[in-house]
């Protein structure tokens, strides 16, 4: 089945719009299609041109959407939608997902552990990569070497805020990265360690590993490797996987009788 056929089916079932891709001037751009525009929908998802679909859905909802929409979503897009739904940022029930499985090539490039959504409408399933070589490579460094590696990376930060801006699960109205008490204004590169660690901590319980942050970094900082490690730690400590399903509660939302830090730092 193609995305267009699936969209046609969704319109017949009564959705009001479908968020998919449109080819124009040689590029693929995200667009919310109405029923009459269905023939303009790209049949496939552009392989190497990924956009923060879930973030777009959130902004459409914020603008006062009063209807149901279909969304073309890869595995990571669906995880982001689930995470946003759990955190009350979007109404997940108003969405119909057109599931797209990523190619093996894409999955290997992303080192993605689940490069497919819960239901696949387009494409065929590739099982995914369970161990990230990039994380292991950084882990294999000695402590001093590893610190020097990250400091060198963060020294090239332009503070463009692209990693935050493109992130589909970053939605705070007041961002701690813009808090003058935490991050000094007017200095580039931003203060170490506060800037990058603030973001890493924020990502630890919500990063759905789409990798858009790293792709949009003009300095090529390996943010994805950092956040993969952060989510790995959260998985170990709290058995929590961001965006895995609607029922799992975020560890940041459940401090109390449902969660304990090792060593009993928190008691019920």
């Amino acid at each position, binding site marked *: 089945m193609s995305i267009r056929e699936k969209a046609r089916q969704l319109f017949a079932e009564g959705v009001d719009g479908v968020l998919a891709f449109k080819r124009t001037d040689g590029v693929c751009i995200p667009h919310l299609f109405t029923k009459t525009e269905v023939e303009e929908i790209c049949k496939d998802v552009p392989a190497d041109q990924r956009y923060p679909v879930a973030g777009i859905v959130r*902004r459409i909802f914020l603008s006062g959407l009063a209807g149901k929409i279909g969304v073309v979503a890869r595995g990571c897009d669906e995880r982001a939608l689930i995470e946003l739904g759990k955190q009350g940022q979007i109404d997940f029930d108003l969405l119909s997902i057109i599931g797209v499985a990523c190619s093996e090539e894409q999955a290997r490039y992303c080192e993605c552990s689940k490069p497919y959504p819960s239901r696949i409408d387009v494409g065929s399933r590739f099982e995914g990569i369970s161990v990230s070589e990039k994380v292991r490579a950084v882990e294999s460094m000695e402590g001093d070497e590893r610190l020097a590696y990250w400091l060198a990376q963060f020294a090239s930060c332009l503070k463009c805020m692209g990693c935050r801006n*493109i992130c589909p699960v970053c939605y705070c109205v007041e961002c701690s990265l813009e808090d003058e008490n935490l991050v000094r204004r007017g200095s580039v590169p931003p203060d170490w360690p506060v800037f990058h660690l603030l973001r890493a901590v924020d990502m630890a319980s919500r990063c759905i590993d789409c990798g858009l942050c790293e*792709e949009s970094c003009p300095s090529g900082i390996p943010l994805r490797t950092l956040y993969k490690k952060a989510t790995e730690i959260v998985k170990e400590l709290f058995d929590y996987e961001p965006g895995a399903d609607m029922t799992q509660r975020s560890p940041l939302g459940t401090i109390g009788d449902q969660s304990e830090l090792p060593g009993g730092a928190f008691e019920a």
Partner: protein
Amino acid sequence: MSDKNLDFSYTTVPTICPYCGTGCGMLLEVIGGKISGVLPMKGHPVSDGCLCLKGWTAHEFVSSPDRLARALVGKDGDFKEVGYTEAVALVADAMRETVENHGPDSCAFVASARCTNEENYLMSKLARFAVGTNNIDHCARL
């Protein structure tokens, strides 16, 4: 719900960042007919899906209340809205007077990366040919 009742719309418009001469590719997000955000254009030959801080916030000036949308002339410590004919005449008179009294190099021209090549060419003609100075620069010295 029919299309007519659809009270929302979302699209993106491919364009080039208006700030400097680099020419990064961006998509303007348009929600309900209003420019509301920027996304980097993926796979763009110049910027390949990246933007700088200015690019990421390039949508903000479009409908900013601080944006100068009309010619203003300062009179008695206050700004007064005037027509463009009057404003241009005022600038031309002041410039002519300055050039006559102090020579052409007393004037300087600042061109803009937000303008087209043709507009900047004309600016250069105005500075070098009409006024007679090489004092011309632009806003995007990178």
